[in-house]
């Protein structure tokens, strides 16, 4: 059962909070802090079940990663959650993602949302 959640976020603290929230509801968590590395990761390794995607990333932007995934069938079933501080950015790319969360993102809010999204038969 794929319960892998990929957090693409350059801020270590936020990544650690997001990771804790996701682990809390039973996801297996992987974290990438750089756009370029994330691009390689997405290309070469298995598609995660869920992705938390920050739009402001070093080297390769979240928007580019989003485009990559939209053009790759492997990500058809992946749930993509955009996390951004820019509400306008959220509106612009909202249609290409499943959810948009505007920063500041509450730990409880993220935990409650992802709890509803996790695979039905996954262990908590």
């Amino acid at each position, binding site marked *: 059962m794929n319960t892998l959640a990929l957090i693409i976020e350059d*801020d270590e*603290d*936020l990544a650690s*909070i*997001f990771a*804790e929230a996701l682990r*809390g509801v039973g996801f297996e968590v992987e974290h990438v802090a750089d756009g370029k590395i994330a691009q390689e990761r997405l290309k070469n390794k298995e598609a995660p079940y869920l992705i938390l995607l920050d739009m*402001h990333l070093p080297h390769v932007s979240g928007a580019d990663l989003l485009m990559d995934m939209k053009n790759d069938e492997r990500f058809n079933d992946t749930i993509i959650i955009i996390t951004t*501080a*820019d*509400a*306008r950015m959220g*509106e612009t790319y909202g249609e290409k993602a499943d959810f948009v969360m505007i*920063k*500041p*993102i*509450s*730990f*409880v809010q993220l*935990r409650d949302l992802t709890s509803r999204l996790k695979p039905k038969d996954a262990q908590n």
Partner: protein
Amino acid sequence: MKVYLEQLLQVPARDPDDARRKRLLNILLLGTLVAALLGLLAIVVDAIQNPQTEFTRETQILLGGIIAVTLGIFAIYQVNRRFSGRLAPLLFLLLLTLLFPFTDSVDQVINGRSLFLFTLPITISSLILIPQASFLFAALSSAIIIGMSLANSVFPNSSAITGFFLLALVSWLSARSLEQALHELRDVNANLDQLVTERTQALAESLERERIEAGRNQAILNSIADGVIVFDRQWNATMANPAVRSMLEIPLELIISKNFRELIEHPRLQPRSRGLLYAMMEHDTQPVGFRIEWSGKTLSVSAAQVYNSRGEDIGTVTVFRDFTREAEVERLKSTFVAIVSHELRTPLNAIMGYAEMFREAVYGPINEKQVNMADRIIKNTQRLLGLINDLLDQAQMEAGKLTIQMAPFKLAELLDNVHGLLDKSASDKGLQLTSEIQDNLPEVLNGDAARLQQILVNLVNNALKFTDKGSVHVRLFYPYEDTWGIEVMDTGHGIPESEMPFIFDTFRQVEGTTTRVHGGFGLGLSIVKQLVSLMNGEIKVRSKLEEGTRFIVTLPLVIPESTKKDWTLS
């Protein structure tokens, strides 16, 4: 010869009539002189042919007459030259009239061939004296004839005398009409002269005005800091001021009489700016203040078409303003806003996240006091985040960067979100937060949901802040066609009348000092007001001290095309 004759005859005079008369008199004097000389010649020829014969008495008289006439002519000629007025012609005519009786035998003068001689001064007098003078000379001639006739015991020739007066009448009439015609002609000429003078003067004045105007325009153009280039209909530059030269740092020769295309293709112009300038040129638009980049400078370009008095397009005036500093300030401001937005919010987000994890006992159980402390951290962090958002919104609105983006949204969701965000704050204060949607409102509207939510949250937050007991009620309603409204009603302190005009001002709270009690920058209502006007809506406030306050926002009602039909039917 002709010139000499002309000099002899011409008498300079100020009055053209006087000049005409004097010249005519000179011609007559010359004619008379010639006649006298011919008479003299006849006497000389006769004397040569009959050398033995003595001069008859008649010949002697004639010779004396000729000499007298010649002397008289010279005298009158001098008078004519020296004196203005009619003295000379009068003398001449008197000389002629008084001379005639001596030119022939008495019989011939009073009743014969010499009678006709008297017609000469009668006719001439009306021409060279005054028109009426012909009567004077008719009378004089008649008097001479009558006098001579009576002296010789002959009945005066009444037909001749009548003839003199008739001739005088005809001369008078013709001379008078001639003078009148001349006067009229002169009047016309004078009017024409006057007109020409006036027109010339007006023309000179308008030229002078134009020269001054052009000079003034040139001075303005030369002294203003904005660069100006004037183009004709074909976009050839006809004029450019010194400011444009220093702004573009190229000689004016490279601008004036060149086509705009050459300037657009100049290597110093950033390629991206070329498209903008070409678009302006090709579509003849009149843009105001679009930006171009010219070798490190940011220039703002405005253009305006120029029309002549017939409304025809004759070219374009383009104005360049050095916007480098402003652009830099704007860039710094945007950067600052972006930094604040990101760098302040990210750590605050982390603080809040960790506090939540602590509160949620992610790493093990915590006691009640710790829960309370975690709640306070979360609440204060949220407040700080709210303040930062307000400041950013205010900064964006001041920079004119905040725009309204319309999309369909559900009214119910709007209220759900408000409850989700503020129910807790209300219950913490022991207040009730209630809401309703008026039945006849459509479920889905077009609008900027995020900004509408911001308006609602700010108004409700404000109401909660200033209400200590009772409730805050939110109502979405449909007051009249094409309008919908948001009403937020509280049972709070109310706003004093004196503070009403200032409640939407930036950084202001009622009575100023309450900032410390209620917290916040006082930006909330100011942002609401600005957002409402960005949405082409209106905000009103009604308040009664110690009873409560009501904020009423009215907005244009826009129903999405997709749901329009359903709503109209219902």
